[in-house]
């Protein structure tokens, strides 16, 4: 079912960031997208280890139509490539995750991580500078005290806004395997980092120690059959976190129960449907992302073909299941061959938890309205949509297309995929990354044509 009957949605393209040519350098490929808690800032990380922060347009942010205008605020190199000499392995500088800390003062803080190291960055503004020193000239040269005849008090003069990013903490050497998740706790003092086999708990102030809270590494690595794929703290209860696995299970743990949370408190797993069993059942059940709702009542999991909403009180099955691209079920072997079956899609909640969103192939992204039980398929393509104009909705059909807004399954471009998405915490603004670009869309309640 496509959203609006006439094949058009209320979503409009607001902006596209990044190079518009098809030839994109590997380093420029975006690998993380995250709004901060107010929605004023939007951070992106790329494979080159850089972070680019966009800020909502200040002058027009009170104009409803222009709330989705973002400009570059700060750019800095977060991680550098490293080399592990002992294992002769390169450590990629690719940014895996960005998480903002809630704002406490004028500065903004975020955590960014690559495969091995997490860093705390402080982003602060400087728009004034002191002028009128007695012993220092404007150009920095020192004056000799004997040359002074009068004294003056230095004053702050406005200057061009300068945004500085400085690394305040580096949390290193705590992960043997690749870090896939970081999550800031609601206590705003601790955070967790998860790799394939372990989850560690950190205090933001201390970089020289972290506590292991989950360890699923078997004593004999030959017996390894399951890895951790995603993890997140509960948004309200600082003792609760969840982690998803490659076997399609999600475990909820309570840190009050024991120091090492290997024993889960709840296990969320949907029994497998035997009629759909295939060689790839396990691979497509692997959890690629897990996100709590803002309310803390629900949890959303993304696996290769579906989005599932779980009530934290019910472990036996999800309360809602949405097919993201079920038409791929018959193509799993080809997707296994070209490695697309291992793509890890993220998902996100709307601010009021009434809708959820995730990406797909062919630069499509899917939105599901939980209340109205409607879903949309939209395309992120600056070539096919004009900024400000409503996007048309798409349908994927099995055979050849019959209508204008249809596309056949075999025509999908699997090299164009949307893995990273983020929803503005308050507004109907979404940001998502295609391979080449960052797209920002806004839903207009009264679209103008």
């Amino acid at each position: 079912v496509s959203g609006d009957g006439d094949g058009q949605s209320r979503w409009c393209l607001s902006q596209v960031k990044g190079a518009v040519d098809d030839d994109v350098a590997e380093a420029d490929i975006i690998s993380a997208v995250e709004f901060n808690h107010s929605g004023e800032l939007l951070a992106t990380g790329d494979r080159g280890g850089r972070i680019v922060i966009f800020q909502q347009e200040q002058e027009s942010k009170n104009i409803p139509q222009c709330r989705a205008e973002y400009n570059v605020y700060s750019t800095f190199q977060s991680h550098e490539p490293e080399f592990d000499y002992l294992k002769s392995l390169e450590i990629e500088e690719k940014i895996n995750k960005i998480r903002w800390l809630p704002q406490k003062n004028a500065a903004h803080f975020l955590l960014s991580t690559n495969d091995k190291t997490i860093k705390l960055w402080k982003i602060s503004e400087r728009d004034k500078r002191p002028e009128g020193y007695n012993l220092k000239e404007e150009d920095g040269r020192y004056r000799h005290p004997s040359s002074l005849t009068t004294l003056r008090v230095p004053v702050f003069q406005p200057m061009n806004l300068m945004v500085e990013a400085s690394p305040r903490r580096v949390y290193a050497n705590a992960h043997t395997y690749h870090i896939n998740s970081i999550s800031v706790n609601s206590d705003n003092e601790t955070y967790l980092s998860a790799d394939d086999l372990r989850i560690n708990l950190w205090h933001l102030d201390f970089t020289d120690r972290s506590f292991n809270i989950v360890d699923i590494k078997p004593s004999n690595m030959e017996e390894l059959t399951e890895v951790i794929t995603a993890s997140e703290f509960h948004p309200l209860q600082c003792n609760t976190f969840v982690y998803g696995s490659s076997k399609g299970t999600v475990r909820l743990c309570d840190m009050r129960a024991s120091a090492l949370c290997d024993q889960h408190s709840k296990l969320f797993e949907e029994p497998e449907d035997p009629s759909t069993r295939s060689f790839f059942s396990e691979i497509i059940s692997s959890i690629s992302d897990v996100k709590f709702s803002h309310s803390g009542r629900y949890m959303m999991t993304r696996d290769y073909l579906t989005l599932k909403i779980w009530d934290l009180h019910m472990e036996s099955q999800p309360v809602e299941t949405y097919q993201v691209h079920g038409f791929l079920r018959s193509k799993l072997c080809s997707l296994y061959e070209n490695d697309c079956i291992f793509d890890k899609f993220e998902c996100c909640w709307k601010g009021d938890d009434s809708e959820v969103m995730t990406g797909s192939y062919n630069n499509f992204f899917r939105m599901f309205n939980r209340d109205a039980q409607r879903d949309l398929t939209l395309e992120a393509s600056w070539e096919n949509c004009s900024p400000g104009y409503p996007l048309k909705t798409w349908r994927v059909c099995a055979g050849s297309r019959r209508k204008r807004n249809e596309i056949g399954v075999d025509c999908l471009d699997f090299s164009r995929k949307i893995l990273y998405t983020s929803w503005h915490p308050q507004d109907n603004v979404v940001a998502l990354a295609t391979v080449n670009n960052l797209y920002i869309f806004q839903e207009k309640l009264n679209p103008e044509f």
Partner: protein
Amino acid sequence: MLGKGLKRKLEQEEENDLKKMDPHQEVMPTCYWLQRQTVLTLSLLKLHSRPAHSDPGLARRVLITNTLRHIQEELRVEAVLLPQSLPNAGSPSGAVDRERPASAKSPSHTENSLTPVSLLEEDRHLFLSLQSSVAIHTAPSVSKNCPSLSNIKDSFTSALAEIEDLCPAVGITTSLTCPSLSTESDTPSSLTMNQDVPDITCYSDTTAISNKFRHTEPVHESMESNMDSALFQFTPSLLDSAQSLFNHCPSLLADFSLDDFLFTEIDNILFDNTACSSSLSASSGSSKVVSMVRDDFVKTLTSGVSQAALPSSQTFKLDLNDLDHIMEVLVGS
């Protein structure tokens, strides 16, 4: 491949009741085994090659290994379920002439565990047949496979031309030996077979060939040798490309030394580097077995990795014990 999802559901139910089947019914199970073979080959290749972004993620390897284990388990179960002798073990081979004498008498195969050549004609079912026959013979050490392999090659050398005369679709025959990736014309991978080969997607084509063979009784003997020669045709290039595989995957022969064990986390070596770390089994005779397995294994792999003209025709040579050894190597025993 893309259209086979629906058939696969039916096949799975059929396969559970697998006994003797008439040719017509075998359309479905064939496709299932075909796909299983494909998945098996793909999985092995994936474990041995680096993904595009040089990120040998543990999660990915675990998922592929689990898929392999699942297939291995299935094959093991099937081998147990098919305890009969070779012709019967070829029961999935449906339409092929079962009156053909079981070539257990074939001198080249008396003492070893390999499937008699007559069953090797059942290209699609080679793998399964091989499994069952191996289970029957309770295959001895892997090392015996090597001489038998070469025996096969020798006997295959003899009458390739004959097989070509017999069957206009000798291309079909060869494609049948390479079930993995050749049946999809739209498979984007470089592992696709050469395009001259008629596209076989279903067992019905095999039926045509088999019928042809059935009518030419005297050919039976030469059929074996024909198959031998067909296989032998593949092997030289395989041997050539085996070397390229070694070069292609340098981590296969990772320069492990005692220092690596002393100073690094062993489990990282086992899992962070390529699965096939042969030097880890450096102790005693087991290394010989492992390296032999690896040689065969490598040939199997190279058949997929190398040029399109040489699909994974040799994969059927993997018998159950080989697979066991391979699994051990992969998980770093």
